[in-house]
């Protein structure tokens, strides 16, 4: 049998999260420790001036069922086109396995998520390096990817269409 890999939205530490594999990750004005629910509560507000920042989202792969041999080469990337509209962006970075805190101030050291494409993906296992073997079953694998949405005063009000973020992995 092939492995089952899930994507979890991390809440309290590097080994605790909520399965979002078939759900929605929604940027909000509260931390993931308060809510990981994809609802209309705690929306981001378009600022009168300057830029507003969402609380960060931290994503990490989870091995729900083991591979025959191993999992390796975890990569994250977007489709390269920001479809969120004027004034809205997403910043991303790999924070290794150090969980840190949830915060809603500007992310330090991140890059434009839409700059990470299939031809230039974000490395997802530089710190917690693979290969990940059957003994890693039911554990988190690879690094934590931190994301933050930025909303400038030029953004329009209203719900946004979903954007894509792809997590790719190799399996033997």
């Amino acid at each position, binding site marked *: *049998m092939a492995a089952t890999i899930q994507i979890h939205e991390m809440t309290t530490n590097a080994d605790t999260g909520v399965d979002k594999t*078939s759900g929605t*990750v929604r940027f909000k004005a509260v931390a993931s420790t308060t809510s990981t629910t994809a609802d209309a509560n705690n929306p981001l507000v378009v600022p009168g001036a300057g830029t507003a920042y969402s609380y960060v989202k931290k994503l990490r792969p989870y091995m729900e069922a083991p591979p025959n041999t191993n999992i390796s080469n975890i990569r994250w990337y977007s489709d390269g086109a920001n479809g969120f509209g004027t004034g809205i962006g997403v910043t991303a970075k790999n924070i290794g396995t150090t969980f840190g805190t949830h915060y809603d101030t500007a992310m330090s050291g991140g890059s434009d998520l839409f700059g990470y494409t299939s031809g230039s993906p974000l490395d997802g296992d530089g710190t917690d390096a693979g290969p990940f073997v059957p003994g890693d079953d039911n554990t988190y694998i690879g690094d934590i990817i931190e994301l933050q949405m930025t909303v400038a005063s030029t953004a329009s009000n209203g719900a946004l269409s*979903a954007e*894509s973020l*792809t997590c790719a*992995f190799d399996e033997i």
Partner: protein
Amino acid sequence: MKPLQDRYQWQATRPDESLLTTGGDLFGTVMVSLIPESPLFPRHDFTGLTFFRRFARGFLQAMGGGLQEYLHCIVCQECRIYCRSTTGAILITPPDYELYLSCTPTPKNPPSF
């Protein structure tokens, strides 16, 4: 229907007709087969190539959507062969080509509660 990652099984045949069905090393094999679980999907048998190794590549839509594609990859001296588990389609590339697909988002506007 089987989960996406289980729709195709692979096997490699050695010169003595014994079968290899685990691992990633294909050195010394003379035929590699990708066998669908469903008869609606095509079976692929590759011969006449110098096989090096194999792996699979999964693509998760990471902000909701789950596993969108699962490629089987056969690395040969002459080329690289990718097979989509969603359709059974084959793509032949240069030997060192790394194929990464973009997952399209599932519609979520207006938001689902």
